[in-house]
């Protein structure tokens, strides 16, 4: 069997027009100009097919040749990898590629919506308490440094709130040791935070904004919900894995178009954040209901937190928000 090829000797950049002659005895003879070479077929290898790229045959002496069609000589060649032949078929046949695209989108959605959050939940439950304490303390130090100032609430008010908060927590049957802190934060405004290992921080601003201590109990229950469900660690894990996932997929596009990848990453991470907030809300609602505390004060506090609160305002901006829409949160509170 004879085929015409373009042969490169591997020692120079010369282009040879050559011919390959396959024999039944396991040898191939290459003839180009005044060169004649003989190779054992066992020693040659064929390039794995990619797209519609011309196939190449690599010879043991480092030379190689390119040909337009492999099919007439295929019976003579070493068997190619079945796996990569299948991969090549998926790549090059439209209907296969379309199927792969649908499958890829499905798998991707499954990963982001289910696998990654579930994995983060499992890992978060394995984190030793000592590590959590270190993390909590470090985060507190950083926040004290960046956004917090010492609380200006009178000490007896702080003591009274702490006592009432810890009383409420006692009724929640938690195994975590909680710590209630007050800080002033003009930068952050009215807010409450939950850090790993049971640190809950109230800003002076939220204490002042709340019309009753009952509203603050609602906020407390929300933050306890974050801590009991280990949201901060799960959040960090989920964000990292999703960022890695998207970098892996889009990693080969040039840096300027990766803006196209940064946006989906951000949207997925914000979605995680909204889910955690909703979970913490659920926790708070359950607690308030079980203890016959009205959800009305928490509802009023949420309304005054969201100054631009507007019953009509839901829409695309929801997808770019770290918290669920206030309207949705309030609706949920009202339902109970």
């Amino acid at each position, binding site marked *: 069997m004879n085929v015409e090829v373009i042969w490169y000797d591997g020692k*120079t950049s010369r282009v040879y027009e050559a011919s390959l002659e396959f024999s039944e005895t396991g040898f191939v003879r290459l003839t180009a100009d005044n060169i004649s070479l003989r190779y054992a077929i066992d020693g040659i290898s064929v390039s794995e097919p990619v797209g519609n*790229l011309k196939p190449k045959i690599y010879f043991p002496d480092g030379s190689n040749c390119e040909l337009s069609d492999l099919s007439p000589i295929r019976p003579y060649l070493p068997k190619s990898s079945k796996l990569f032949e299948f991969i090549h078929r998926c790549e090059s046949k439209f209907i296969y590629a379309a199927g792969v695209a649908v499958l890829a989108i499905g798998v991707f959605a499954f990963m982001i919506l289910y696998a990654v959050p579930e994995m983060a939940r499992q890992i978060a439950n394995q984190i030793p308490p000592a590590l959590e304490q270190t993390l909590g303390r470090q985060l507190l130090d950083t926040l004290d440094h960046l956004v917090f100032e010492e609380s200006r609430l009178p000490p007896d008010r702080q003591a009274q709130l702490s006592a009432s908060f810890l009383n409420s927590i006692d009724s929640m049957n938690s195994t975590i040791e909680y710590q209630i802190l007050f800080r002033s934060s003009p930068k952050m405004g009215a807010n409450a935070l939950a850090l790993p290992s049971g640190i809950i921080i109230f800003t002076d601003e939220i204490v002042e904004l709340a019309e009753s201590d009952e509203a603050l109990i609602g906020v407390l229950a929300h933050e306890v919900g974050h801590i009991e469900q280990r949201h901060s660690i799960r959040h960090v894990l989920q964000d990292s894995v999703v960022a890695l996932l998207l970098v892996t997929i889009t990693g080969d596009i040039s840096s300027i178009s990766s803006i196209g990848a940064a946006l989906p990453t951000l949207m997925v991470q914000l979605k995680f954040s909204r889910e955690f907030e909703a979970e913490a809300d659920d926790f708070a609602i359950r607690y308030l209901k079980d203890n016959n505390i009205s959800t009305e004060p928490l509802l009023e506090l949420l309304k005054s937190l969201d100054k631009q609160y507007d019953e009509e305002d839901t829409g695309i901006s929801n997808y770019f928000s770290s918290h669920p829409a206030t309207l949705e949160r309030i609706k949920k509170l009202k339902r109970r």
Partner: protein
Amino acid sequence: MIEDNNHQNFSFNGTAGAFFGIWIVNILLTILTLGIYTPWAKVRTNRYFYGHTNVAGSTFDYLASPITILKGYLIAVAIFILYTVVSALAPGSEIIFFILLMIALPFIIVRAMAFRLRNTAYRNLRFRFDRQYGQAAWIYLGIGILIPLTLGLILPYFAYRTNKFLITNAGYGKSRFSLQCGAGDFYKIYLIALGILIGAGIIVAVVMMPVMKTVMEQAAQSGVEPDPAAMGAAMAGLPGLIYFLVLLLYFGVFIYIRTAIANLVWNNITLDGGHRFESSLKLGRMAWIIFSNMVVILLSLGLMIPWARVRMVRYRMNTLVLIPGGDLDTFIREKTEEESALGEEMGDVFDMDIGGIG
């Protein structure tokens, strides 16, 4: 055969459709194997692009072994995970990582270039890159650190030195590349960029100010009590618009610098034997391709990435010409040893733009 003293146009004859198949299969297998497939994906992608890049009747070839890349990739991913987790849990530790990365940078750049070029072949002859770590450290760290200290005045010189470093240490077979232009040419490009920025600033000041003044005066003359809410909304919208225009301007200037440097460098590269190149990228066309690619990628949720990539590479190759100084058949091989893939993968994971002259 080939007429060697004629201009030889580069061309890219890959298609978005064919590349889409490769790309989507790569993504699916990468997810299903939790990333283990990445090196195979990379090799297949590069083989597709190199194999469809044509000049003087022959194509390029990407020869890297996926297993070699996998080793470097695993180390890089371990470092990346460590970085994300530690920096998220202990804010402030990013700085330590950043400093370590900066120190490793020259090493990573040299290894990445050496790996990439050694695994690039044309007519079955490999390219190569000399591993000059000392030189790399001096340029990337020594001169690099002077950029903030000189308020950026040395930036064009830095761009010149890095490009010269990457080109003069590269070779094809036994032949070496060299760069003929000087630092002055780079200063010219950055001066023009600066001129555009200043000019745009003046235009904004000259055009916008009277417009705003007229609007205010008309409002006052009409005698209508201006609605404070409407005024507020108009004023709030204005900074948004200006912000958008400034962003667009920076984007444009950035593309100008990239395009001008690519043209400058390619037009001044010589390869032993008097071979030269000619690059004629047009700024408007580049800006249009990059901008529309971004919009299309966003609107298609990423599914048009293959189309965007093929489109960019095709334009890039259509504007590149090889001007042979003699016979293209007479390059000869130089022996080189195996190269680990660590450097290149590090660059990939941390998303650095290694090479710069693509």
